């Protein structure tokens, strides 16, 4: 008995969430990206030596981590993991509900941090934690039913475990501002940074790279054993970092974490480099220049971490470490991937029911991306200079430059949406009956 292709596709297509779901997460990330630079401008006075505490630098940091990085990771993982693992997310209502809770939650949290309003902060934190817990449930369900891509799934589980630790430490840190006791601040903060940046975001970025980099380079999937070895080393690094944050032989476990993390990164980057070198598509343009810069700055963040562990006499080293980790590695990498994935997904969704969908290149506006590329890299350099020179004025210059880049990136994102709509309208016109 034969089955119509369309009937099978009805099931297969249901694994793919409607475009409004990933695009709303990406759109919010684009908006928070601009807001983060504006918050940094507002908090430029204290940013060069920022080491925690309420204020606009903390708000800017969380606008990037929660607003841009986690927001994009949620949208991308909800879209890509079901395709890769052949396990549906289920109803689109849950991802939509998560967005409606998470987006205002992050906005309230950042506003509470920036203005020093503990109740606003606590309310925003509560909404954010509940939304991320719901996302963790969806992620766990998808991973538990996964068929295939075990490397990506392993990274997903590590990211999920890290997310649980992030939520516990976040609740503990936010609770301090409203008088609710929890973990000690030092332990909670160190664990929060390690699990959020290297654990949740880092493992998702490394794991999704095993889908995205070969897909864009058009290469074979990376060697599975080596990829598992990289994942195992990364998990060991996270466990050692956790032990260090609880004060268990902190110097030894801290150095061990950095060593294991460096080995994991070296192996991962080696696999990615092989994929890029052997792929059918050799010229990946500016987007992958950003991705490669992200990998270099990930390695640099581990060097900075080593400097902190060895108590190197460098002023502003903890701030520089945070800059390399969040702005240098995660943000640069993610913006590189995002500028490729948005038009690709736009074309993929537009392909449904069309003989010839708009191509990713036809959906991509190059000029805003050129401006963003220059501004983003210039802003990173200015940020580093501001930290080293302890200069609020250089920090303000970095914020203005970064905001210009974020505006250009927003223009790129809006142009993709506009071009998708134009293609829809053109098809509707062609399909209309002629009188």
């Amino acid at each position, binding site marked *: 008995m034969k089955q119509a292709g369309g009937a099978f596709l009805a099931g297969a*297509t249901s694994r793919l969430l409607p475009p409004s779901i990933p695009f709303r997460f990406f759109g919010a990330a684009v908006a928070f990206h601009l807001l983060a630079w504006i918050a940094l401008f507002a908090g430029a006075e204290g940013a060069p030596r920022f080491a925690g505490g309420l204020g606009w630098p903390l708000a800017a940091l969380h606008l990037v981590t929660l607003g841009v990085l986690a927001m994009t990771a949620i949208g991308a993982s909800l879209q890509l993991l079901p395709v890769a693992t052949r396990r549906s997310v289920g109803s689109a209502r849950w991802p939509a509900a998560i967005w409606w809770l998470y987006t205002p939650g992050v906005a309230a949290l950042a506003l509470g941090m920036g203005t020093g309003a503990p109740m606003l902060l606590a309310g925003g934190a509560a909404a954010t934690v509940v939304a991320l817990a719901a996302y963790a449930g969806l992620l766990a369900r998808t991973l538990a039913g996964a068929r295939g891509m075990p490397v990506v799934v392993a990274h997903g589980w590590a990211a999920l475990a890290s997310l649980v630790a992030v939520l516990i430490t976040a609740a503990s840190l936010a609770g301090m501002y409203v008088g609710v006791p929890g973990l000690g601040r030092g332990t909670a903060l160190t664990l929060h940074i390690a699990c959020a940046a290297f654990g949740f975001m880092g493992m998702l970025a490394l794991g999704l790279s095993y889908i995205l980099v070969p897909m864009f380079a058009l290469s074979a999937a990376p060697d599975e054993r080596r990829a598992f070895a990289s994942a195992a080393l990364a998990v060991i690094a996270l466990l050692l970092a956790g032990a260090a944050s609880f004060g268990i032989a902190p110097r030894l476990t801290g150095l061990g974490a950095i060593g294991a993390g460096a080995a994991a990164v070296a192996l991962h980057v080696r696999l990615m480099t092989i994929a890029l070198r052997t792929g*059918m598509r050799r010229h990946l343009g500016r987007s992958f220049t950003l991705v490669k810069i992200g990998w270099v700055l990930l390695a640099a963040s581990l060097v900075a971490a080593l400097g902190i562990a060895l108590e190197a006499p460098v002023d502003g080293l903890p701030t520089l470490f945070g800059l390399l980790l969040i702005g240098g590695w995660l943000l640069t990498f993610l913006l590189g991937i995002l500028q490729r994935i948005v038009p690709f997904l736009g074309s993929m969704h537009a392909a449904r029911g069309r003989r010839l969908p*708009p191509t990713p290149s036809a959906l991509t506006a190059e000029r805003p991306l050129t401006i963003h590329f220059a501004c983003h890299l210039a802003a990173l350099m200015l940020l580093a200079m501001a930290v080293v020179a302890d200069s609020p004025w250089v920090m303000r210059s970095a914020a203005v430059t970064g905001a210009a880049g974020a505006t250009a990136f927003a223009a790129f994102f809006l142009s993709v949406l506009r071009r998708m709509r134009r293609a829809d309208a053109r098809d509707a016109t062609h399909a209309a009956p002629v009188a």
Partner: protein
Amino acid sequence: MTPSSADARGDGAGSALLGKRWVETDGVHIDVRGLDPPGPLVAILQLVESIADRTPVFVHHDRDPKMLFPELAERGWSAAPLDAPPGEVRWKLERVE
């Protein structure tokens, strides 16, 4: 119709990476079932790029090759679903002038 050729490389090792290819009177067929992403994508695009004329390609897959469509569009190829046995998806790919 009898398959007239084996896999792309002509050896067993090639089929694991590139899928199984054969030629029938209606066009070139490729079976990418069982390959993890992005294996099917790469295998199909390698075949498509090796075809200089208007010979159609028939894809035998175990899932909807969603990530293929943007790449096909970039190369000026279109895809149309065909009837298939349960558990299989078939697509006909054609160059569009």
